[in-house]
């Protein structure tokens, strides 16, 4: 099985063994939800930017490739 950096000239298997997780603090789902809530406006703004980026204007269609 190949790791992510064992790629050769073809599509690759990018799966590697699961990470050995170091000891973690006790998981607090309420704290996670609070953290997510604090960032949600930024995510909504970023989503709007991706949606705007996917609109193709006439200027893009008219881009001339002449070299």
């Amino acid at each position: 099985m190949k790791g992510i950096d064992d790629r050769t000239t073809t599509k690759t298997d990018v799966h590697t063994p699961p990470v050995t997780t170091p000891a973690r603090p006790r998981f607090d789902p309420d704290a996670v939800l609070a953290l997510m809530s604090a960032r949600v406006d930024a995510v909504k703004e970023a989503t709007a930017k991706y949606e705007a980026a996917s609109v193709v204007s006439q200027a893009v269609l008219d881009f001339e490739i002449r070299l």
Partner: protein
Amino acid sequence: MTAPSTPPYAVLPFDDANYCVALSDRFAGRGPEALPQPARYLLGYLRHLRAATIVVEHDYTDGDFLDDVATYYVRSFVDYPRRCRRLHFFTDAFTADTFAAALVRRPQEASASGGASNAGASPVQTPLDLQASYLGFIVVRPLPNAIIGRTVLATYDADGGRRCYPAVKVYVAHLFGIELRVQSLAYQEQDTVLAACATVALWSAFQKSAELFNTISPTPAEITRAANQSVFDTRPLPSRGLRTEQMARAIREVGLEPDLIKCGAHVPLLSLLYGYLQLGLPVIMGINIEGKGGHAVTVTGFSLRPTPQVSHEEEAVTGAAVPRIGLRIDEVYVHDDGVGPFARMYVHSRTPKSENESAIYFTGQWTHDDGTPRRLDPRIIIAPVYHKIRLTSLDLQKWVLALHLLASASLDANPARALEWRVELRQANDLKAVWRDSVLPETERARILVARLPRFLWCATLTAEGAPIMEVLFDATGMARSFPGVDILYHDKTFRDETRLVLALSGTEQVLGEELTEFLREKT
């Protein structure tokens, strides 16, 4: 019937002088500096591949050039020959005598002797050995300029795994009855009559899309004709280039759809290229060459390093940056008809000056007169996709953002784990082959391997320190408006358990959205 005045082939040791002569007698004795740019690039490329012998096939009929002749050159006042030369390159050194012996040797004789040759002769005498040292070929067109026709050469080596060429295929060359194979993507130089750079960029991409999607692989003349069916403000021939709209038209003519993305400030360009290339699909990139103008190249591969090489590839909103695999790409490899095949473009990041400027630019072999590199600004990318692939890479980004919000908040408890997302277009059967061989739990493998999946999937994989945490599958044939999530594979049981706890809380829907939350609850 009179015997031809030129022998059918010649065998030459590979060196600068012989390479020039093999291309054309008019370069004899003039040295590599007299060669036009792509021919000069190919000389350096073949040196790097350690070519040792050239076999010149003097009388070769090339289908693409024949179509060019039939479309245009045959109606010129000047007589243009319709047959080409084809140069084959090998890493082993051998003589004309040993090649002649290999030509007539029966395959069973070769295997009976274990591939060994006659005493005193070179070991490269059997078709099998010729295959082992085969590097590919260059078709040399009998034109005054633009002599480099269809060129199929091996890629650079993988250099420890960093160089990746996903968009190649196997080509079979028949050399006097000997079948020789090489993995590559065909390249050719524009002749500026039937094909400009945009046409040959499409031509290279169609070589592979034809294999992937069972569509046609048209000649340059056919592509130029198709592209000019919608825009009539200039004459199609001689071709002076194409607009984006015309390239899109040419893609539709072969039965595919153009996934057209403008390279603005908020487009993660390198990760998008990676995503399409992982299907094996070449991507056409329109670039503006500083001080020269619009140009098109075909992206065929990339160099992937173990750690990030650029600080950013898009202008991200503060608090919503997604770490993506594109940050680890430091070079992309392109078929650039003005340079050559598998040409390097070095990746640089910058702060975009406007919404329409990419955070990434490139430098390569296009230089100013003083030798400093010209800046190559990406403007568009076009992926010629199967018509049923309706979900684009950009469509997926809103869900990747939300998934990263969940994952980063959950995994923030352990800041040592560097997260990374890669979003790639794959065929379900290819993914199943990967999963079968993966370390997923047996029950999970058994479930997903027999699952009914769409032929094409977008697979969004989250890794931590290089190891997979989860894979989220989206139906690439689905619609962005109706949530196209298909399945989730969890590689990390702890993360799955913790995600369940978060999803059980009321209020998750307000953060992640109802569709995604419902999907996650069902699949987690």
